[in-house]
């Protein structure tokens, strides 16, 4: 599914959180929203998911050619992985993964045997087979992360949105999961957007990177393009590029 964000503006009480932001992601692409904290990247991700209230003050969100600006998160069905995973702590791993299937109306709900099968397949997919009966509190950070991913994927979304997916993990696990996510993305063919403040992560993982600062897009492009021609002083500074490459801005 193609995602198009057109001229989105969103104000928080006093200050603008996003100012005339446009982003386009092609089917199967992996996009990183990169920026320091307070740059508006998480707000943008939440607007795409339909989780941000009140709605944006201006602009549109399109999934393929469908305008979803005013659709609820329920209707958009974007897989969302939260920064702190937001697993249901009172449910087991299996129940967490099955959640999105069990809340469906009876007509579209798969039979219980099918749900069980899907749980097994998803756990294998995220390389954590056999953890069905555990509770989230009994898992490590990296495991929780992958269960959150399995839960989001259980409903077969066309889009995957990840908010600081590696933010709460230690360096070693981070690196492993990063490689794993890239492979995973390529296998599933999902359209994926992830938010990060870590430029190394963004550039290593993503096909395209969009750099945000103070609610405005500073530069969009492939990692190569951005590294070769940083658009302005902020980008040069944020990416810690040598001064010789600094653009005249």
């Amino acid at each position, binding site marked *: 599914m193609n995602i198009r964000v057109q001229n989105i503006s969103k104000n928080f009480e006093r200050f603008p959180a996003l100012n005339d932001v446009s982003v386009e992601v092609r089917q199967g692409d992996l996009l990183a929203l990169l920026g320091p904290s*307070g*740059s508006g990247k998480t707000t943008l991700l939440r607007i795409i*998911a339909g989780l941000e209230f009140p709605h944006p003050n201006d602009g549109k969100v399109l999934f393929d050619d469908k305008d979803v600006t005013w659709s609820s*998160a329920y209707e958009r069905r974007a897989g*969302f992985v*939260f920064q702190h995973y937001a697993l*249901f702590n009172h449910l087991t791993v299996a129940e967490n993964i099955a959640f999105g299937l069990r*809340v469906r109306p009876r007509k579209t709900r798969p039979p219980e045997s099918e749900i069980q099968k899907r749980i097994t397949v998803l756990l294998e997919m995220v390389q954590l087979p056999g953890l069905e009966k555990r509770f989230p509190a009994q898992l490590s950070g990296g495991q929780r992360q992958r269960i959150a991913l399995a839960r989001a994927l259980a409903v077969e979304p066309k889009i995957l949105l990840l908010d600081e997916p590696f933010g709460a993990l230690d360096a070693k696990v981070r690196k492993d999961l990063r490689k794993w996510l890239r492979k995973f993305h390529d296998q599933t063919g999902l359209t994926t957007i992830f938010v990060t403040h870590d430029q190394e992560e963004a550039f290593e993982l993503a096909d395209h990177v969009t750099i945000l600062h103070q609610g405005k897009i500073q530069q969009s492009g492939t990692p190569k393009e951005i590294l070769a021609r940083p658009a302005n002083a902020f980008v040069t500074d944020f990416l810690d590029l040598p001064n010789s490459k600094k653009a005249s801005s």
Partner: protein
Amino acid sequence: MSSFTLAARTPNHDPKPVAYTLTVLAFAAVGLILVLPLVAVFAEAFSKGIGVFLHTFTDSSIQHSIAMTLKVAALAVPLNTIFGLAAAWSVTRFTFPGRRFLISLIELPLWVSPVIGGLIYTLIFGIQMPLGAWLDERNIQIIFAYPGLVLATVFVTFPFVARVLIPLMEQQGQAEEEAAVSLGARGWQVFWRVTLPRIRIGLLYGVVLCNARAMGEFGAVSVVSGVIRNKTVTIPLQIEILHAEYHFAEAFALASLLSVLGIITLVLKLYLEREPVLRPPLAPAWEDRRRQRDPAQPTS
């Protein structure tokens, strides 16, 4: 370094004798002010023997007062559970102007004298007021009847459920609810499958405290009751009547019933407080955890 050690000094680092003395004093004060009267209630209740104690509960007015208290609590507690949930939901899930003010307003019955709560209702529903007159014409009686008792009790016990839930829900944030929505859950499914299971201990805690207060309420209820025997008298009012009529043993026998309710509440409260989030003192620990966790607030 030395200034750091000084700054980290807490009462726990006081010399041992001081700590022991203070602890003993605290227990002595609690014993004298709280436990001794409780023991006295039971001592007095059984002062004329177990026969008189048991005989108290065969009296029809006393039985009626017990039934009345149960009936009032049976309606007031569920009502305040729903109000408390709704109030906590709205102030923790939405931001709107006057939100802080609303939170303080919910606590109003805690610092306003219960008598005022009773008086307000006698005023609103008294026949001299339009609403009271209108209801009176239709033979609907609020004051000096069961509905009045429930209203007064609801007023007094309004904050109990909301007060427990607001900080709890604020601390938990709403990432899990958002996750449920993004997985396709509808409003009610989110509530039953995610919100309610997460707050159930806190909710039970609030309900236990609310119930204890509802059954024990005297001030507000006495104003709207009119103390009509065998009609609008609850246990606390009945105790007052018995006491005023010099039936001390009976008064204390009935009082011991309320005391047992108090003790059960205390035990339940201690049991539920094994849940760390409900352990008093609540505020500082919550603030810390909130800062650490940073629930899904759109900060970046």
